[in-house]
């Protein structure tokens, strides 16, 4: 859900393969990486089904296992106030099964579910049921409980040996993923296409309560979560990045199963999805199975998006959260997103400034002045629209947020005056590469990265271009982006101050 650093995750694949291009690597290393890159590129296969669904397959590894991902290009940035959180709650509902999974008698269930929706329509989404309606509501549920097979969908997966099954929703994607033994390949195609083709919005009103619990945990009781929600609401005034992916409480309470069904028909269409599989594969044979199952999905209308662009920021913004919690600071600078040529230099700059224990921000704030216990940096909240470069710090008692901001500003001013050294630049580039070399040993990460890249940038290879740009970043580029973006007028500072 928190899709910070998504850009880098997407781009990781190529980073790991091109490490050899970096200055300190040996000749042998360089040739290793180049051949590994060539081998990977030759093995990644892409297909487009007749219904417009794009498929990416990558055969790798020795163990007979694979990671399967279905990624849909829909998330918080597609939502409007009044219906925030709908993408996320739909993600939960996609685990409830279909007309054949999760039910003992779909014919009867369908009629009961339809009646629930009539009652919901008459009672503000079942929030103001009259006593008679409540009685009927409870009776219907009693009967439904005898028809439902709870968690049938996930139990079937478990039985097949699934691990790591989960889903996430962020600003622009909803991702469904799982690891399975190869013996369950056809099973996976059948189950995933079935939930796209014949989903049933059963147990919706219980799940709405579950999501409200999730919201309490992630936002209401988590100072960091609340601060982040506030920050986005201030940094963005018009663009939908301002609203939380999990949704506002009022909006979650107002959703109905009927509304979710309309949402699905608009966004869950083949042209708005990518299927991606990484692991031990036989692409030619496996593609036939994918076509047999996913080819069943109707084409649907292409998704049209009409999203208000965020205007220019004219002046620093500050937001303060006063609560019974220790002080925190986030400083967020507006920045363009990929494919803007400034995107890669900004990422490298962030790595130089705060990415390691030798970085100037860590050295000054954590080691020398000791005003912060830790610092971090991130880009987000999404990748499809202009986004933010964020620096965060946990304030170390007895220091104040103001002291942290002052120390931060002095590092940034000095950096803007002096720029980066060649050594800092080289170390940062290598570090970005090595981080993802480790990260992307996972089939699941690769599958998700391919699909995400394809959906927003039109090609899984978008990452190659980003990597090329990243590896060519110069000291002059760093100076230029520091001058242009690390400016107070286009930043938002969010702080937690302890309630006295």
């Amino acid at each position, binding site marked *: 859900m928190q899709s910070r650093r998504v850009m880098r995750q997407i781009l990781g694949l190529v980073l790991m393969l091109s490490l050899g291009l970096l200055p300190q690597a040996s000749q042998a290393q360089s040739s290793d990486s180049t051949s590994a890159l060539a081998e990977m590129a030759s093995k990644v296969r892409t297909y487009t089904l007749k219904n417009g669904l794009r498929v990416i397959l990558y055969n790798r590894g*020795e*163990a007979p*296992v694979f990671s399967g991902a279905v990624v849909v290009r829909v998330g918080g940035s597609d939502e409007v106030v009044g219906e925030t959180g709908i993408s996320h709650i739909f993600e939960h509902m996609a685990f409830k099964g279909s007309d054949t999974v999760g039910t003992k008698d779909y014919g009867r269930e369908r009629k009961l579910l339809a009646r629930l929706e009539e009652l919901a329509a008459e009672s503000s989404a079942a929030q103001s049921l009259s006593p008679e309606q409540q009685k009927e509501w409870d009776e219907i549920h009693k009967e439904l409980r005898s028809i439902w097979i709870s968690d049938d969908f996930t139990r079937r997966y478990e039985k097949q040996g699934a691990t790591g099954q989960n889903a996430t929703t962020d600003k622009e994607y909803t991702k469904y993923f799982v690891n399975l033994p190869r013996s369950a390949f056809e099973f996976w195609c059948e189950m995933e296409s079935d939930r796209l083709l014949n989903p049933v919005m059963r147990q919706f009103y219980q799940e709405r309560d*579950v999501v409200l*619990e999730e919201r309490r945990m992630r936002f209401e*009781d988590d100072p960091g979560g609340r601060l982040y929600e506030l920050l986005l609401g201030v940094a963005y005034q018009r663009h939908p990045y301002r609203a939380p992916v999990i949704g506002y409480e009022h909006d979650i309470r107002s959703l109905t199963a009927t509304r979710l069904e309309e949402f699905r028909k608009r966004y869950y269409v083949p042209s708005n999805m990518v299927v991606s599989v990484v692991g031990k594969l036989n692409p030619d044979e496996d593609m036939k199975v994918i076509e047999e199952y996913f080819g069943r999905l109707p084409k649907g209308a292409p998704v049209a998006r009409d999203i208000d662009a965020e205007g220019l920021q004219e002046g620093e913004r500050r937001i303060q959260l006063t609560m019974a919690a220790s002080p925190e600071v986030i400083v967020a600078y507006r920045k363009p997103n990929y494919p803007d040529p400034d995107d890669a230099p900004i990422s490298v700059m962030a790595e130089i400034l705060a990415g390691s224990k030798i970085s100037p921000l860590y050295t000054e704030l954590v080691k020398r002045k000791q005003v912060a216990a830790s610092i971090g940096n991130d880009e987000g909240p999404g990748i499809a629209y202009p986004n933010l470069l964020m620096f965060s710090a946990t304030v170390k008692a007895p220091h104040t947020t103001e002291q942290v901001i002052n120390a931060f500003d002095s590092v940034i001013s000095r950096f803007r005056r002096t720029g980066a050294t060649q050594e800092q630049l080289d170390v940062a580039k290598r570090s970005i590469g090595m981080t993802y070399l480790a990260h992307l040993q996972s089939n699941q990460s690769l599958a998700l990265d391919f699909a995400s890249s394809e959906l927003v940038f039109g090609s899984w290879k978008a990452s190659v271009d980003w990597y090329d740009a990243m590896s060519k970043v110069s000291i002059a580029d760093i100076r230029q982006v520091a001058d242009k973006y690390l400016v107070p007028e286009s930043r938002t500072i969010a702080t937690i101050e302890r309630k006295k």
Partner: protein
Amino acid sequence: MIQKLVQASVAALLFSVSGCAWLVGDKEDPRVAEVASFKPVQPERWTLKNGLTVLYLKDDELPIVTGKLLIRGGSLWAPDVPTGSVSAMGDQMRQGGAGKLSADALDLELEKLAATVSSSMSTEFGAVAFSSLSSDVDRVFPLFADVVLRPRFEADRLMLWKGQSLESIRRRKEDPSTVVSVAFLQLVYGNTPYGRVALEGDVAAISRDRLVALHEKFIRPDGAILVVTGRIDRQHVEKLVEQQFGSWRARGSSLPPPPPVNFQPTPGVYFISLPFSQATVQLGQLGVPRLTPDYPEIDIFNEVFGSSGFGSRLMERVRTELGLSYGIYGGISPGVVKGMNYVFLQTKAQSVYPAIDEAIGVLQGLQQVPPTEGEIQEKKAAIRNSFVFNFDTPADVAGRQARLELLKYPADYDQTYLPKIEAVSPQGVQQVAQTRWDPSQFVVVVVGNEGAYEALAASMKEKTGPLGLFGLKKLGFESAIVGH
């Protein structure tokens, strides 16, 4: 997002999914045969004169090498030092500089090489790990060895660690899951080495001399295991290991058995009042050591009860059917001497009583009626079919073998595991529920706001459910911790 699976809290389960045969599905699918015929490559092993065992497995996919040294030992064997000392020693091996390099110089050198070295010590074992590009391994491996053998424990870095630790202790109260787990640990294990929680005074009392002494005590080759995988030849590994660790002095003795748990928890409901909108609950009791004779039954019990996400009864009942919780899980987590049996859940303040009641009800259901044969078969299939993921990568294969050896699992553990799982009966699982759990002995910790307290107190007064047995006691977070 959709499901929070049990990960961190059930470390022992990490070792319990294993076996040697594969499920063959019911269809004529060549993919089934591929899985059935898969035989993971086994790591090569050799032992140095000083007792250090090396497990090596080549993996050519990427131009990197990773390694990890596992050492048995930890705070369980250091009962007389300030709490947190052993973990500080583990952290400072890497963070405090090593060999010829100061802490700053070591940070810089590793960053330049895009390599990592990390170190840590816990209650029962320690780990020092590295990762490196294959081309740089001759430069990184000696730094790794310096961190193991020649840490400098620089005073400045210890001061920095202390400041950061004090800040994290100050912030403990702000995360309900931390509050509940700290309080539960203390109420179940008391002031034994298993229950200790570092306080401000402990951190202040940790000295550099202490770290040096603990390093001398624990970091020894006897029984240690070094795992190396990646794009590197065996001869190359042999040479590096001999050069760097060949003269590491053996002690010729092993650690004594871990200390007993000399503590009898007092059952009850303990309420810690903090202004969170959700109530966070951990309940349970002292548990079992690893590898009791009924460990296969325990593994199946865990799957049925609460450790398998949506496939478990806790999740199905409390989350899916009742919508009372987003995060709920539980099970038997075997430990060194006595592990813990527990349930964790979060729910809105008003529903704290029904959520606890339902969770205990799920357990009592299993005590009264054995699970169905079908349910057991499902869980067996899940264990069998997911078994391959223990051997997904060479690093998984070698790392798993090292952990099993370090914790003294029998050599035939993997070979006998699946047959033992196959032999588990519904009655065996019911017996686990009956003999390993006793709700009358439960410690129930609830962290929540005043509304949660009132709702809980009112329901406990009028209802006769499992919680009716207990008194309700309000604690401050500090008073839940022994030593305050």
